[in-house]
């Protein structure tokens, strides 16, 4: 097949569904052939998921997880974007802060769990703090890179038209780096969704992460464990798809390669 040929509409839907069905089939027969008593088959997982929905705990857990991500990610964006823009704008400040950031950045938010519990106790605040940490650094770094990659012709044009430094930042540098900032936000949101599950396993007693650990601890309900895992995957996908819509906005679309 020629790689330049656009796949037809039905093909774009059919093949992904076909592969999913294939995987489900493989999973089903693996369970049957190995005659495992512990690992659930797809049908058992489906029943488990239905049970969760009926008991109405699931909505509560989904809501709690999303709420924690919204608060933690929101705070990371609210602090990270201005900080990143400032550091990108003043390279001298960046040089001062950069070493500290480079040391903090590779530390997994999971490693912060004991520290978070000392700071905030076991509870919501600790979980939100961990999500904040996970999302904060990618956002700051994306903003710094975004600002320093703004072509000098744009800055010069802005100065030529008599913009004050503050106007230059808001009217030229910010919109010019926005595509890169959006990419950073998207990566950060993905990380936030990873971290929330881990945080909920330890610090709180609600949310999808807690659902997994609780299902295992109270009677080894692996059908519920896998059901929760699949839900986490689906919601993560939905978040990413929703965020990708931002990239289609006309004022940032120029910054994405395949949309030139």
């Amino acid at each position, binding site marked *: 097949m020629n790689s330049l040929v656009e796949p037809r509409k039905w093909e774009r839907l059919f093949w992904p569904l076909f592969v999913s069905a294939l995987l489900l089939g493989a999973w089903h027969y693996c369970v049957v052939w190995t005659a495992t008593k512990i690992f659930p088959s797809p049908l058992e997982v489906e029943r488990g998921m239905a049970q969760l929905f009926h008991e109405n705990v699931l909505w509560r857990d989904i809501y709690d997880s999303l709420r924690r991500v919204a608060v933690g990610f929101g705070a990371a964006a609210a602090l990270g974007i201005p900080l990143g823009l400032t550091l990108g704008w003043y390279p001298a400040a960046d040089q001062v802060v950069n070493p500290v950031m480079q040391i903090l950045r590779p530390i997994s938010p999971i490693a912060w769990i004991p520290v978070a519990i000392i700071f905030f106790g076991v509870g919501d605040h600790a979980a939100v703090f961990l999500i904040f940490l996970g999302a904060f650094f990618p956002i700051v770094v994306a903003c710094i890179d975004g600002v320093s990659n703004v072509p000098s012709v*744009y800055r*010069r*044009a802005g*100065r*030529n*038209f008599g913009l004050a430094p503050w106007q230059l930042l808001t009217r030229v540098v910010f919109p010019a780096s926005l595509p890169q900032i959006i990419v950073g936000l998207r990566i950060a949101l993905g990380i936030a969704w990873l971290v929330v599950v881990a945080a909920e396993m330890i610090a709180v007693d609600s949310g999808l992460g807690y659902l997994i650990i609780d299902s295992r601890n109270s009677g080894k309900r692996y059908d519920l464990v896998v059901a929760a895992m699949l839900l986490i995957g689906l919601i993560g996908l939905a978040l990413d798809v929703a965020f990708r819509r931002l990239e289609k906005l006309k004022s940032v679309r120029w910054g994405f390669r395949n949309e030139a």
Partner: protein
Amino acid sequence: MSSMEALAIPVALQTKLRAEHVNMVFRRDGKETSVLRDINLDVGDGEFLCLLGPSGCGKSTLLNTMAGFLSPTSGQITVDGEAVRGPDPRRIFVFQERGVFPWLTVEGNIEFGLFKLPREERERRVAHYIQMVGLKGFEKSYPPELSGGMKQRLEVARALAVNPDMLLLDEPFGALDSITRLIMRGELLRIWQAERKTIIFVTHDIDEAVQLADRVVVMSARPAHIQEIVTIDIPHPRDISSPRYLELRDGIFKQIGLAHKI
């Protein structure tokens, strides 16, 4: 000869921009490179001047010092008798079409420099210049949807909208195909004749210089100094197969040291 030249230039030229003993030395990795050497030049008000020279000779550097983006190592540039200390909306630098802002529509780009004006005046100017550069119907389009020539016209419109005294164009048509380039030269002349701005136009294309300019400043290879200033005493529209055109063009070819044969 000199009396004929005076006749051919229709405007009484008052000095708009003056460069006096401008030298520029770049220092990189402990090495000094002299880029401009003792440039002395008067540009008349409303004049169309071309700076012509080989690639990398320093003519863009000279244009950048005139715009105020760079300051000369020694010497000074004055505009209306006032020393240039930085970029100013009264003289707008036009880059190749890369200078338009891709996050703004055609309208948004033209309006960019008009933030100090009341809304009605902004709208009036945007409409006027969209009309002038022939972008009507594309008001809401974004630059990636436009062709190279359209983007270039958009950048010229954005520059003209702030009503500058001077346009500084740095090889503005360099990235366009040869047919579009010819059309754009005609457009630029039309706009220049309508608006009577002082235009300083950097190019390495001898034909382009002779077609457009009142005077062509021929610059040497680096360090650039002014080799000769050629007055193009042919009225517009210019017949580019006329003997006088060919004579002037050949003169510049020889001046640059190129035999006119391939």
